[in-house]
């Protein structure tokens, strides 16, 4: 076998050249982007401490903002419930489609392509579009928020579940198929038991994520925690808005910690 002689030095030199080129390209894109968007990096950076100083004065909850707490808690509770419900319903639908569409459990090529397409479509329609379209038909109600979260979550979970099945269940599946087990036996005896921890891990992650996304949906559709933040914000009750942000931080970090504890036991 003949190979062109590549010395270590020339190889490293070439690699460094490529890396420098890529870095220069990224810097160039950044500079052009800043010019077009009229974003002054230095000014922007300097405004951060100022912004935080402003926040520290205006957003700081005071004694009187405690009175908002019950209302905030109620809306936040609603939002968490809505996130959980949207993820659970989405997960049930998604596992069904993921089994039909994954490369290892899929029934045929056509279904695989179809499911992939559907998932990609649902996932890539902006959450804003879902929220606004649904608002038009279903008006300002919690159901609208629920549907918007549900539709987007379905897209995410189908993809995630398909990847989990392909990564984790393929080998055990083949073994059971070789024993003469039928399709449904393989699904219930090999695939489901094998993927359940990852499934639950993803469900927990999506719940956490949907609490955050519910804020956006809430602002647009006038529901839940997003709505109440928007009201405080637009009526300049910044201390109450700050209180809302603080409550969200506590709840999201609480959920994240709880999820991590659950994961530790399950995996």
């Amino acid at each position, binding site marked *: 076998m003949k190979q062109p002689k590549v010395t270590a030095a020339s190889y490293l030199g070439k690699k460094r050249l490529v890396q420098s080129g890529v870095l220069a390209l990224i810097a160039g*894109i950044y500079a052009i982007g800043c010019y077009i*968007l009229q*974003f002054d990096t230095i000014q922007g950076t300097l405004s951060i401490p*100022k912004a935080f100083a402003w926040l520290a004065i205006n957003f700081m909850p005071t004694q009187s903002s405690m009175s908002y707490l019950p209302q905030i808690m109620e809306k936040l509770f609603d939002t968490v419930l*809505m996130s*959980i419900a949207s993820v659970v319903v989405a997960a049930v639908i998604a596992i069904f489609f993921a089994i039909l569409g994954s490369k290892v459990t899929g029934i045929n090529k056509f279904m695989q392509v179809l499911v992939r397409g559907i998932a990609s479509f649902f996932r*890539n329609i*902006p959450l804003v579009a879902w929220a606004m379209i649904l608002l038009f038909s279903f008006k300002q109600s919690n159901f609208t928020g629920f549907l918007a979260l549900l539709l987007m979550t379905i897209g995410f979970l189908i993809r995630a579940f398909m990847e989990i099945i392909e990564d984790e269940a393929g080998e055990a599946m083949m073994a059971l198929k070789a024993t003469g087990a039928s399709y449904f036996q393989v699904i219930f005896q090999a695939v489901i038991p094998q993927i359940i*921890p990852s499934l639950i891990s993803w469900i927990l992650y999506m719940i956490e994520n949907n609490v955050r996304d519910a804020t956006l949906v809430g602002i647009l559709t006038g529901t839940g925690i997003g709505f109440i933040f928007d009201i405080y914000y637009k009526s300049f009750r910044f201390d109450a808005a700050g209180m809302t*942000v603080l409550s969200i931080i506590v709840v999201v970090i609480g959920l994240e910690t709880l999820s991590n504890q659950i994961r530790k036991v399950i995996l």
Partner: protein
Amino acid sequence: MISNEGTKPIVSKPSFQKDPQQKIKLHKTTASTWMIQAVTISLILITFYTLTHLNTENVKMADAFKGLMMTFNQMFLQPNAGADGFWVLLEALGVSVLLGILTTIIGAVLGFFFAVIASRNLTNAYWGAGIRALMAVVRAIPTILWALIFSIAVGLGPTAAILGLSFHSVAYLTKAYSESIEEIDPAIIDALKVTGCKFWTIVFQAVWPTIIPSLVSWTFIRLEINFANAVAVGAAAGAGGIGYQLFVTSGLSFDFHEVGYIVYMVIIVTLILEFIAVKLRQHYLGK
């Protein structure tokens, strides 16, 4: 075919009974299976409660779904560029894409820096714990709230959007990168430490080259997220871009033909981003 002939006599073990009267158990309940059941049941009960108590404002479901189908029909089957026209929408789309790219670059640079400091295998535990806690708080606040907060603090516009989006981007990538760094084989780092290399030399000679594949992979995942967030922030914080156009056409002028057109434009961009991400991952995994 299978018989006990010629096999060793079976010693009865305490863990199960071979008494023919007694049923043989297939498994014992472990903490893990118990937790899985507990979580599953709780989630289902909560969902059931939520769905039965969901406030629908007495909207007639059948009519609403019919209306939704009509909207879908206008959007997806009869899209057009509407009052704004293609070029205005394309420019707005460009703004959102740029927002996504800029905030990803900021997130990647600062994120890498923070990740190095936060990784348990590179620095002392106090720094790491401090940064991780800070980033957890930053991540807990929804992007849209960051953008809204900055738009009062520095005024409405792209600067507020960029700063708002960057906070989340930095926090997310710090976590992702530092998890990749912590997976590095300790031998690689020790090998350089033994030769007396300086901290940043180790970072750029050992850490950086080792994690480039996962670095690239995470960065592109974040680019997809940042683009989606740029659209969202444009709509809900009035920060401009295609998101703002989407908000105006769907919430103020109710031109769902144009909404459909915009959605298709956004989908095309996300598909391109996804395609690039997949190709890059294949490129790096293939090596």
